[in-house]
């Protein structure tokens, strides 16, 4: 589908894409268009934008097939680096998680863990798993977004990376007790993915989190 022909309203501007609101048939839809980045040379820019557009479209439908909550792909326009997907009405976790009542917050964190567990169980990893890429829908359900860096992988390294990135986004961008949040996320993850697999992911997560520069050997 040629998304440039749609009647679209500017909606939001992210780091790598512009979002527009539109209607496709009876559905309220979002068109996500990966924009050209002036800092990259055109060759690299094209490769990254088209690669991620295809990747994201595939991963979204794979994730949905695995029972993970994510928008449905309605159409892909590779020429324009755009994906039309169903609109999820809600708020980005990054900006609403802190304000939720404590019980509600615990449930949401647990469910986020479950969603990641289900994704990993299906042999998928997200690749950019932060609270900026999760929407809490109006009825309180977490939806995963932004699968542009996702891949098919059962490597503990990639699974650990998802958990590590999520944990760091919680400790740097939220006022939550990060130990409590991690515990809840892990419970949900373990529940979905099973004890043995979950433990392997957690072990690698811990190792990855200490990979930065100049950690003391203690």
């Amino acid at each position, binding site marked *: 589908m040629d998304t440039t022909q749609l009647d679209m309203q500017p909606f939001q501007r992210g*780091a790598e894409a512009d979002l527009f609101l539109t209607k496709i048939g009876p559905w309220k839809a979002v068109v996500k268009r990966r924009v050209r980045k002036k*800092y990259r*040379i055109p060759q690299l820019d094209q490769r990254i934008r088209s690669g991620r557009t295809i990747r994201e479209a595939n991963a979204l439908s794979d994730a949905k097939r695995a029972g993970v909550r994510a928008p449905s792909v309605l159409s892909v326009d590779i020429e324009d680096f755009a994906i039309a997907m169903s609109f999820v009405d809600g708020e980005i976790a990054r900006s609403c998680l802190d304000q939720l009542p404590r019980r509600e917050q615990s449930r949401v964190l647990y469910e986020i863990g479950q969603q990641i567990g289900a994704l990993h169980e299906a042999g998928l990893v997200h690749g950019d798993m*932060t609270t900026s890429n999760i929407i809490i829908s109006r009825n309180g359900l977490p939806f995963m977004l932004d699968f542009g860096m996702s891949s098919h992988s059962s490597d503990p390294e990639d699974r650990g990376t998802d958990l590590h*990135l999520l944990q760091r986004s919680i400790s740097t961008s939220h006022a939550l007790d990060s130990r409590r949040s991690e515990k809840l996320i892990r419970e949900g993850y373990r529940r979905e993915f099973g004890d043995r697999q979950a433990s392997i992911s957690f072990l690698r997560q811990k190792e990855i989190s200490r990979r*930065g520069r100049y950690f003391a050997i203690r």
Partner: protein
Amino acid sequence: MGKSARLCLGIESTAHTFGASVVDAKGTILTNVNSTYSPPVGIGIHPRKAAEHHAEVAGQVVQQALSGSGDKKLAPDIVSYSAGPGLGPCLRVGATLARAIATYLSLPLVQVHHGVGHLDLAMASTEARDPLAVLVSGGHTAILVHVGRKWLFYGETQDITLGNLLDMFARETKLPTPGGRSVESEAARSKRLLPLPYTAKGNDVSLSGLLTASIRLVKMGNRVSDVCYSMQEVAFSMLAEVVERSLVQTQKREVLLAGGVAANNRLKVMISEVAKDHGASFHPVPISLSGDCGAQIACSGQLAYSYGGEISISESIVVPRWRLDEVDVPWIPLS
């Protein structure tokens, strides 16, 4: 003594550079004398040999830093030294000298974290007050924001730094030191993009695979300038991408670029494009102050001293491994 007349002597000796500098309380650099150990082409920094170089030049460098302009000698009121992170043997040369000077002249002694020094000097020499800080050097490749009393890692390299990437590639392909400059001038002679791995993970990057793949491309017979061009484009694009993502998430209005690799013009252009695109102002450290130098230590030493950073001789250890987010930096944001 007026407040701005308070002088701080800073001694840098974390890696290849031994430096000494005197900075006044307003942050004005009065002297900045540096001597860099450069290993033969194809060989990296040997910690002991670098330390020997530092011990050799230390006396002269400090003397020159204290002699100021003309006949007027500069009498320091504070002594600061780079306590880490860095190479143990090198760090000990600077620390020993700093302790000796502080004891002999009965002056307060202050420890400085080398990376914090890079940021403080970059901020003192630009208009940045509360930036998204991008620190790119041989020791760090990190995106930092100031929260509470500390710098917080928002993203960083999961393995080697940008400085490592450029230096190690130059070393393996026998380009002259400093490696960063060699790679940049080689890259300027090419426009041919070869395929290389692009590894951004969330706000982090991983560069070790890129290094291996780049070296392999050279061994396969590709032109060094083509590989330099491709490696720079891919590595800097990865960094620019995670900087952009961090900028959108933190909503900072300023982007600071500090550290030795900030001297690279291509990187500077890329990060400035990112800042401009999101309406943030861009503050690159001046090229003359980007690399390791005494001034970064003297500048940070002044700030730390004002906030009660004085330590006793017995506390004045060196810390080869020292995370930047462990350091108290209550002077940021600058007013």
